[in-house]
């Protein structure tokens, strides 16, 4: 058919062709609509309105304590029956604590008793004096159950394989900080600046008008001083060289939400995501230095909060147990059950041993532990309120401790370099948290430097502080 002919005949051809097209269109719409209705009904039927059963427990483990202190273990248990809408109608719970002196004795079962508080459902036990006074400390785990119903659940999840441990500090070095003076903060050398935006040198803010500013949620520093900033909103890391050159960009296949990150010795990158798929736990993803996805593994527990390099691979602080767990060794992921079985209360250090931290009221107890025994310990007290411990890590013969002190109106980070005599170095830094980042992702140590991640209305930055030559 010539072009001329086609121009003369379109109406009749159009009508002839349109009829089957229209018929198909109608049939397709009808069938798809039917399928949608059936599907929607099915979805609605899968969405029960009734209340599900709840069985959960929280526990604040006394990881460290002063010698001679009495110890009371308390479990706040949440239990609600399926189909019961009244939240004040909870179920009866019971529990047993399995307790032993040191690390090798046989566990002894002691029943937990209900506490007398009316507004919480607590089970509690006082640790027998002969166990509490053990110089090697004690280990324990709880078995909690709903009477005639769900359970038992183990707290921590690793049970006898990876119990909680409480260590006495026989002679901690005392550090009394008194009242904190706000407003005398130290600025480090700014080694990285990345404005907010979508360009090649920018870092992004996560989308959502109702969402607080979240962006540049974590960073890490290579052994050579290169800084890698996680730009999760753009699904990438930006890398600045040791002399500040850059950034170069490495795309990562991540979920683009708040995450922590850690570099491995070979330059590969681990990213700890914070949001899990339905009925799963968050992922730790592993990428090579070029951003190629290697492997991923789910965390053992639903609330991981921190990712660091350990002696044989990355380790993750997981909640609710508040235990450190290996998530990979020499590049091979550690399955979730094995993570739980190998959990420990202290952060395993690349140099060997572990560091254990406990903040309670207005004091911080911190200990370097080797083979289950406290090697060095400190007790830091303050007349100004203390919030989270951001970092506790050896640097030479010192321990660098970074924590937040605050009032209702302000807050600062306090940096201490501690030795056997007390404080060797002390200064404060601003918090600079215009944008939310990973809760414990703001500080890193590399070489003799402390690095701090901050942000303001113009962008994210990393500042470097010289901590002096390791002694």
């Amino acid at each position, binding site marked *: 058919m010539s072009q001329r002919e086609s121009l003369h005949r379109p109406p009749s051809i159009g009508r002839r062709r349109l009829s089957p*097209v229209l018929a198909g269109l109608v049939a397709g719409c009808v069938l798809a609509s039917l399928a949608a209705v059936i599907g929607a009904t099915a979805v609605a039927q899968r969405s029960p309105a009734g209340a599900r059963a709840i069985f959960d427990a929280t526990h604040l483990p006394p990881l460290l304590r002063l010698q001679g202190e009495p110890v009371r273990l308390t479990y706040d248990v949440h239990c609600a029956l399926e189909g019961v809408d009244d939240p004040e109608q*909870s179920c009866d719970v019971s529990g047993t604590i399995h307790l032993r002196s040191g690390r090798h004795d046989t566990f002894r079962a002691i029943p937990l008793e209900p506490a007398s508080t009316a507004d919480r459902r607590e089970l509690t036990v006082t640790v027998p004096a002969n166990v509490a006074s053990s110089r090697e400390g004690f280990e324990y785990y709880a078995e909690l159950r709903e009477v005639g119903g769900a359970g038992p659940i183990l707290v921590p999840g690793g049970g006898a394989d990876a119990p909680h441990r409480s260590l006495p500090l026989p002679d901690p070095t005392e550090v009394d900080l008194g009242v904190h003076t706000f407003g005398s903060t130290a600025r480090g050398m700014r080694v990285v600046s990345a404005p907010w935006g979508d360009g090649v040198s920018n870092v992004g803010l996560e989308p959502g008008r109702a*969402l607080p500013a979240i962006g540049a949620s974590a960073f890490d520093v290579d052994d050579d001083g290169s800084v890698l900033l996680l730009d999760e909103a753009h699904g990438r890391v930006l890398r600045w060289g040791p002399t500040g050159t850059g950034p170069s960009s490495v795309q990562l296949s991540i979920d683009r939400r708040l995450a922590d990150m850690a570099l491995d010795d070979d330059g590969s990158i681990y990213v700890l995501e914070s949001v899990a798929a339905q009925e799963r736990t968050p992922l730790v993803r592993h990428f090579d230095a070029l951003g190629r996805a290697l492997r991923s593994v789910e965390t053992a527990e639903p609330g991981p909060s921190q990712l660091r390099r350990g002696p044989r691979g990355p380790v993750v602080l997981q909640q609710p147990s508040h235990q450190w767990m290996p998530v990979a060794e020499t590049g091979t992921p550690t399955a979730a059950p094995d993570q739980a079985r190998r959990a420990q209360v202290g952060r395993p250090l690349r140099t060997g041993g572990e560091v254990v931290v406990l903040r309670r009221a207005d004091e911080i107890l911190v200990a370097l532990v080797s083979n289950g025994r406290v090697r060095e310990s400190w007790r830091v007290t303050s007349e100004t309120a203390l919030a989270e411990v951001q970092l506790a890590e050896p640097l030479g013969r010192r321990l660098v401790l970074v924590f937040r002190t605050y009032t209702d109106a302000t807050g600062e980070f306090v940096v201490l370099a501690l030795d056997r005599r007390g404080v060797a170095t002390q200064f404060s830094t601003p918090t600079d948290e215009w944008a939310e980042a990973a809760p414990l992702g703001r500080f890193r140590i590399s070489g003799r430097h402390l690095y701090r991640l901050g942000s303001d209305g113009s962008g994210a930055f990393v500042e470097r502080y010289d901590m002096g030559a390791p002694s």
Partner: protein
Amino acid sequence: MRATRSFVVGFILGVGLVAVGSAGAYHTRFVADNCNSAPPTPTSFITREGSATVALRARFEGYQWAGGCWNDNDRDDSPNDPHEDAATGGEGGDCSGFTFKVWRESLTTSDASFRQWGMLRYVHGPYTAASFKAGTGAPNVTVAKASLIKMDALASYGHIGLIYATNPDGTDRIIEAKGEDYGTDIWTRAYRGNPSYSGVRRTGWSS
């Protein structure tokens, strides 16, 4: 042959059109299909434990800006809602609507009594995160952050979360409706020492 091909093309087009339309509509159907306007049940007392139960039942149920209705099937029935639209009718509360229901408050800001709202009752309540932060309303007071305990809140001008537990390192486990991409869950946060956040407490807990 040509007619058959045309029919198939039309059929595919029809299915496609419905699919596109349904995809848009799917995220707006949760409230319309599931939620109600039932009155709350007045209760004579509330406990922190009971409010934790209310909060735990909203866990995993998604987030909806300006929303306040959810079921308890442990999944977000309207995932991937648009970020920029408060009227998409999806499952879940936003941070302040979630807090309002967990604290079992009244729609009348001068009323500090206790109201048990059903999970599927679509209600946000009269407070924003900023008004909670200011302690607005008869049931709400600001308190020193260092004295906050379970089911007290940390509120900024743009967000509010409830304390579920405190960790040994001094962080808190916060149960919160965080955002469309996050849903409602428990996360470790460092809100307590952040100057943007203030301590807020619901008054009248039984003890």
